[in-house]
Structures are given as C-alpha cells and as structure tokens.
C-alpha cells in the first residue's frame, strides 16, 4: 500500500522528473487490523517484543511530544536489555499496540512510563538469563547479558536473545523485584545520547502528524461559531458552490465544516461559507475578570495543608502582610495548529493524532459516536509541540465527524485563529495570601486561598462533540491545579485552601506546569515580600525555614553558580541613583508537588522605567530530578521551560470580549522573540542511584516569581499580576 501520494488533481507533467521529489513517507501504522498483542499493564509482552533479528521493539503508552522522551526511553530500555541503541525502536501511543500508561503529562513519562518499561525490560532480561542457564547448564548468577546475548561471565560466546526466545514472546507478568541494572554498569543511561529524531527533523524526512497522508484522503476545515455557545441558524451552501474541489458542507447541530479535494479549496470554502448564528454573550467583561472570579460560586474547599493554628497565630503576629496575586489566561500556542486524519471503515474508525492521550481519546471518540471502544483505534504521530492538552484531540474529533460524513479519510488542520481561539486555555488564577511575622521577621503564620476552577486532569470535552450535540463530558478538567498550593517551608502555622469554583471563563485545560506555576508564583513572590519586610536576605530567609537537604543543596549551589551577594531586597538604588534602566536579581525555589524534582532559579532583569519594559537578561537554574537519563535532554527541557515561561510572564494574556477570544493570531497574542531571550546558565545534580523524576515542567514553576522578585529588587515595586506588561509597570511606577 502506498504510504504517501500526490494529489490526484495535480498533473505533474514530465512525470519522471517528479520521482526524485516524491518522498515516500512511512506511516507509523496503517489502519485496519493490528497484529494481536497484549496491552495489559502487568504483562512484559505489552511493553516489549524481541524480533528475529535480535532487535527489540518497545511499546510505550507515553509519547514524545517533542521533548526527547523517545530517545530517553530507548536509552533506558536498551541499557536494561543490554542491546545497542540502534537495535531498539519505540512504538508510541497506538491504542491497538501500546499499554495505556496514562496521558503524557505531568512530567511523568520517564518517572512512571520509563520506570514501567525498565521493569518490563529487567523482567525480560532475567527470563533470558534463566533460559540460557537451562540451555547451557550454567547457574544464572554465572551468566551475563551483553550486546543482545547471554553468555557465561567466565567467557564464551553464549546465546543470542532471539535464539532463546523463539517466538519473541515472554508470557510473563511484570516483576518489580526483577533485578534492575546496577547504575555503575549503565552504558547509555546518564549519557547525552543525541536525540534520535533530530536529524530527520533537520533534513525534512521526519513525518509529523501534519504530514500524514492516506490514499484517497480529502481535506477538511472547520467553521467555528463567532461566539461561544452561539447556535447555527442557517447555512448558505450557494455561497461556496463555485469553489472547485468542494466535496461537501457538513453540518451537524452547531458543528460546521467543509470537505474538499484540496487543502486550499477547503480553506477557501471555510473562509467563504456564509452562515448565520445566534448572538451569545457568555463571557465576563475582561476588565472585570478578577471580580468575576471572586464572585464565582465555590463548589468545595480543598485544604491542601493545615499545620498548627494559622488563624490564631496570625492574630498574635507582631506584623501582618496581605497580598493578592493573579495570573492571566494563557493559550498553548503550538506553532503548528492542531491536525488529525480520520479514516472510517464500516463501523470502525481509525484516527492518526498528535494527542498526548490516545487511550483517553479513544474512549472519548467511542462515546461521541456511540461505537464500542474496540472499533476505535487512535494512533499517535508526533505533531507540533503541545505543552499540555491543546487542540490535538479536538482536531481528531473534527476529522472523525467529517470523515464519517463523507465516508472517506479526511485530514483536518486548524487555522491559526482556530488554534488561538478554540484550544482549551489555562484558567485564570486568583490567590490571596497573608502572613504573620514575629518581631525578628520570621513567619509564624501563613495562610492562603486559591480561587481556581473545580476538577482535575481527566478528559476535556471535545469541541466537535459539544457543538454537534453528541455525547461528551460536562465536567471541567483544568488539570491537577491544587499542586504546590501548600508550601515546602516548615513554618509553625500554615493553612492553604483551594476554593474550587463552579465555572471558569473559556474551556479550561492544563498548560505546562498547570497550577504549580501559578501557585508557586504567588507563594515564592509573597515569601519574598515577607523577607523584604523582615529586611533579611531572601536566600537566607528561605534556608532558615527549609529542612530538606536536597532543597537546601539546590539553593546553595544556585547561590554559588550565580555568585549570590547576600543582602536584602530591594537593591535600593532609587530612581535618582539608578537612572532609567535599573537591574535586579530574584530568587525562587520549588519542590515539585512537594515530593519530587527540586529546582532553584535566579533571574537577573533590567527594568526600563520610562517604557516600563522588563528584560530578562540571564536566568540561572539548578535542578535535582534524581537519576538523569539524558543530561542534554534535561538541559533542553530546562531551556524550554525558562524561555517559554519568560514569554508567558512578560507578554502573554488571552484577550476576549463577551462572546469570544479576540487574541487569535501572533500579533494579538505575542510571544517572546529572539532578541528578548535571556541567557541561561544551569547546573544539574545527577543522582544515578535514585529514582528518575520528571524534568519537563518543574523548572517552569519558579520563573514567574524569580522575575517578580528581581523586578522588586531592581525598582522596589512588587508585581503581583501576570503578565508583567510595560503598561502595568508604568502604571505602578506612576503610583509610587
């Protein structure tokens, strides 16, 4: 079956000439019946198979979202199996082939997904040694594995894995007690193995989701309502009748889309299609967003920590501080708009998708179309980076509804406005804090309330299902946003409460470091307020209340790395001494979810008083994420976390009117550009004998507070509202 094809309409003259151009793009898997294999979480065969040629296939439910996880998982599996890297390949996120290891989010791909694969590999290796022991008559402990063979430690050729396991199947349960490799013997783990995907991406031979083509595939586009919850009252199909290549206008409830033989025809039809919609104004006034959030009914209160008697101690405190922090609505902003291809076959449906959660998507699609789950197959293909639950799943539902309407495979790619306007958003976060200090400036009481939507990670309702009136969820799924509302410091009286709101403007979901970023922003900036009020150096202030050795180590190493000068903030140069541009430094610390990855960061900023512009000049990061699988991969993730978060903090805010999102392109939702990118200096602490923890998110959590604290250090002005736009800085400066 051809894997790639040229459009039928395109008559490429001088046919032979074109051959060299036509790249045959192997799809990760073709539709239809997949080979039957176990996918249960407790079976070794679910995770790995040995091929006749001695190579191994790893089946991973966690997928590479452009983070390098495929390379890291390959390292872990190859090392544990004693196979060269080149003889291990990974199949990711195919509901017919891979175990459901949960969505690829929360910095858990290595920590959970990789650890499961490592356990499977360790169990498999023990079995191979056992089989060799029987064949050779040598005790198991006198055998070693090397380069795809089990051989006597004393010497000898041994037996190739493929010969030991003739059919490639282990038929074994995962055994977490199977001996994992001694970290001293790792040859791949802990090394900066170059990423397996990068050359193909540089030479344009990589197949992104956006590149997937099927034989006979048509192109679809969606037409979203001009207002959220507007009803579709009429469609004038004559308005697009003249567009060559148009196949069908698809309407189902308030879902509207077009299908055409070419992508450009679909785009033109979507732009030209005339439709009428009812008016709808369901969003709050943006200028009054925080009043709206504060007035939203509270469904429940989650007390995330309660130590001592915070209220009582607050009343007794020598000095009291109170502040309110807020963090704007953000969009994921993938550079490639969401894309999917769906292929209907009878009552079955196959979807190629860049979803971070193909298994959950299968459940959603089977509910949407009232199909048994086994009739729906979702196959992961890497797309543009998604940073959380963006629009990939929604594009899959769009493609599916259009493909079913025309009975042919349909590819849908969203427009930029679809992406900015309709991907789910990081919800607005409002946080009230108060602290009581004793006469020496130490915190005796800490109390905080987080006004955040109800719900956890779960699944986000699919736009197409909602618009078409097909079965869909109604519960909010903003992510596990209560994390890091509690604090890592040992204050004697602490109470942190999340007030879970019944609703939030715009469909919420998780964006990189959901909740942990917003909550850490408020906690670490407010702690800096306490340190400043006490007139104590912010590093010293943190160290006094920390009793966690790994936390103390990242902070001390950061101080050394950044040549920390001990003094309280602000720097106190004043307007007169500092001139128009003033500099400052700010510190922040997080223990991610209060049980894993430790990060300390320091931001150096320049503030230009006349324009209100903040420039992040340099950011220092020290991270301890336990065992490091690929140091350069971790560095790449930290760089990404820093730069993306500097962008979010200095520039980003989703704009909306009463009906819809109005920031629907890069001009109205600007992100950081090259001249604005800070220098990044980092140090990694590797602990090869410890568990590997996540690295994809934690270092983002500390950036907003580090910048806020640095601005305070520079100009003595406390920024409590993300983004820190020049307008906000100027307005605040005028008030001083």
């Amino acid at each position, binding site marked *: 079956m051809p894997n790639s094809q*040229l*459009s039928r*309409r*395109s*008559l*490429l*003259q001088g046919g032979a*000439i*074109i051959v*060299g*151009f*036509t*790249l045959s*793009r192997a799809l990760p898997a073709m539709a239809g019946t997949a080979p039957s294999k176990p996918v249960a979480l407790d079976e070794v065969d679910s995770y790995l198979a040995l091929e006749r040629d001695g190579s191994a296939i790893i089946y991973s439910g966690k997928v590479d*979202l*452009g983070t390098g996880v495929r390379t890291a998982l390959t390292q872990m599996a190859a090392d544990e199996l004693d196979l060269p890297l080149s003889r291990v390949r990974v199949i990711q996120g195919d509901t017919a082939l891979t175990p459901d290891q949960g969505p690829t989010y929360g910095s858990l791909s290595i920590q959970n997904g990789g650890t499961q694969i490592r356990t499977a590999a360790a169990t498999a290796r023990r079995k191979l040694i056992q089989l060799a022991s029987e064949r050779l008559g040598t005790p198991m402990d006198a055998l070693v594995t090397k380069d795809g063979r089990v051989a006597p430690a004393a010497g000898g050729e041994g037996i190739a894995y493929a010969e030991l396991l003739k059919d490639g199947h282990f038929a074994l349960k995962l055994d977490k007690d199977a001996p994992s490799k001694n970290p001293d013997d790792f040859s791949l783990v802990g090394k900066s193995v*170059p990423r397996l*995907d*990068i*050359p193909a*991406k*540089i*030479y*344009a031979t990589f197949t*992104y989701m*956006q*590149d997937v083509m099927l034989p006979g595939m048509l192109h679809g586009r969606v037409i979203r309502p001009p207002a959220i919850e507007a009803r579709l009252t009429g469609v004038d199909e004559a308005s697009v009748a003249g567009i*060559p*290549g148009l196949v069908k206008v698809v309407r189902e409830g308030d879902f509207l889309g077009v299908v055409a033989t*070419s*992508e*450009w025809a679909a*785009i033109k039809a979507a732009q030209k299609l005339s439709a009428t919609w009812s008016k709808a104004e369901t969003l709050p006034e943006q200028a009054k967003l925080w009043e709206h959030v504060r007035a939203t009914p509270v469904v429940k209160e989650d007390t995330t920590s309660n130590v001592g008697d915070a209220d009582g101690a607050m009343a007794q405190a020598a000095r009291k501080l109170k502040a309110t922090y807020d963090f704007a609505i953000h969009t994921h902003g*993938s*550079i*490639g*708009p969401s894309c999917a291809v769906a292929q209907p076959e009878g009552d079955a449906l196959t979807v190629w998708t860049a979803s971070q959660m193909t298994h959950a998507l299968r459940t959603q699609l089977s509910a949407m179309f009232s199909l048994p789950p086994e009739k729906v197959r979702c196959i992961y293909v*890497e797309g*543009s*980076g998604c*940073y959380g639950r963006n629009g990939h799943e929604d594009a899959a539902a769009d493609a599916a509804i259009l493909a079913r309407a025309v009975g042919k495979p349909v590819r849908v790619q969203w*427009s*930029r406005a679809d992406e900015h306007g309709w991907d789910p958003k990081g919800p607005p976060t409002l946080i009230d804090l108060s602290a009581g200090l004793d006469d020496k400036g130490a915190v005796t009481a800490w109390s905080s309330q987080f006004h955040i939507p109800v719900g956890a990670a779960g699944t986000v309702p699919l736009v197409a299902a909602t618009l078409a009136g097909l079965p869909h969820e109604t519960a909010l799924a903003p992510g596990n946003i209560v994390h890091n509302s509690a604090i890592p410091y040992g204050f004697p009286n602490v109470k942190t409460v999340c007030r879970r709101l019944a609703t939030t403007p715009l469909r919420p979901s998780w964006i990189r470091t959901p909740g942990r970023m917003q909550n850490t922003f408020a906690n670490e900036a407010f702690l800096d307020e306490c340190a400043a009020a006490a007139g104590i150096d912010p590093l010293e202030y943190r160290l006094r209340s920390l009793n966690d050795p790994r936390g103390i180590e990242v902070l001390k190493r950061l101080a050394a790395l950044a040549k920390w000068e001990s003094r309280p903030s602000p720097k106190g140069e004043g307007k007169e001494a500092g001139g128009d541009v003033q500099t400052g430094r700010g510190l922040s610390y997080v223990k991610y979810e209060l049980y894993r990855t430790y990060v300390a960061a320091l931001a150096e900023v320049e503030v230009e008083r006349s324009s209100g512009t903040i420039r992040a000049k340099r950011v220092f990061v020290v991270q301890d994420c336990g065992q490091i699988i690929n140091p*350069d991969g971790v560095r*790449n993730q930290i*760089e*990404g976390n*820093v*730069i*993306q978060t500097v*962008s979010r903090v200095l520039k980003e805010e989703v704009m909306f009117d009463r009906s819809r999102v109005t920031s629907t*392109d*890069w001009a109205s939702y600007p*992100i950081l*550009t*090259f*001249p604005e*990118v800070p*220098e*990044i200096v980092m140090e990694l602490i590797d602990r090869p004998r410890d568990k590997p923890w996540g690295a994809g998110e934690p270092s983002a959590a500390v950036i907003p507070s580090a910048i806020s604290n640095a601005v305070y250090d520079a100009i003595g002005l406390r920024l409590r509202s993300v983004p820190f736009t020049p307008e906000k800085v100027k307005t605040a400066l005028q008030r001083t």
Partner: protein
Amino acid sequence: MGQSHSLTINGRSLSVSLDDPDTPLLYVLRNEVGLHGPRFGCGLGQCGSCTVHVDGQAVRSCVTPLSSLKPEAKIVTLEGLGTPEAPHPVQAAFVEEQAAQCGYCINGMIMTSAALLKDKPKPSEAEIRQALVGNLCRCGTHARIVRAVQRAAASL
C-alpha cells in the same frame, strides 16, 4: 480544468496544474510536490514555519500566491538545502547543537539562517537574533538555535 504552472524547485523543473493560480506556494509544495520541509504555522506570515528560498531570499510561502512567482523563479526548500550525506553547514550545525525540540519551526529557522549567512557570513549574536526576530519558536529552543547559527558561521 486547472491551469499549468512551470516551477523550478530544488534545481528541478516541473509543472503543476492548479484550479486556483492564487494558491499559496506552501500548499503547492506540500500537497502537489510532496515537500514537507515548509510547514503551515499561521497562514499570515507571522511565524516563519513555512519559509523557503525564492531566488536566494527567505520568503514566507504561506502568503506567496503561486501567481506572484516568475516562471524562472528558483525555489529551494529544506529538502533542497542539503541532505544527511551532503548537509548544508546550517543543517549540520543544528544537528551538532541538538537545536530542536518539537522541531516544527526548525524549517524556518534553518532557511532564514541560511539566507542570513549567504548575505552576511559572519554575523554578530545580536544580528543573528535580529535576523530571526520574525521566526517564532514555542518550545524555547532559541538559545540552541543561536548557537547553531554561530557554529555554522564559524564553519563557513
């Protein structure tokens, strides 16, 4: 019936037949010619993912109607810039610096940088950053990209 258009892409001549001569070059390259180096990012000329070279200049193919190109225009895509066997110095440097995360924007980064180095073989860091000001990356790979361009410049 579509109109026939002659093109020179990556050094080869071919012709394509299109219903709409205003079809942006991006869709012609991706869907008619099967070249997936240039990518759709915004359709507005704001992000740079679709960048190709037209007569040596970096051009946003998503807002370049085919009809605006002269028949003799020489179009080069990422595929035509170099191959693993014969890489362009910028491509080799991007691999060396591991300068990609998701890599969706990387086409634009490489094509824009290659055009920059052709005009200005020894740019300063500030000049590199300025040359890439209109190319957006969401993963935050900027630091590596700048290092890769510096490495490529040093190798020229």
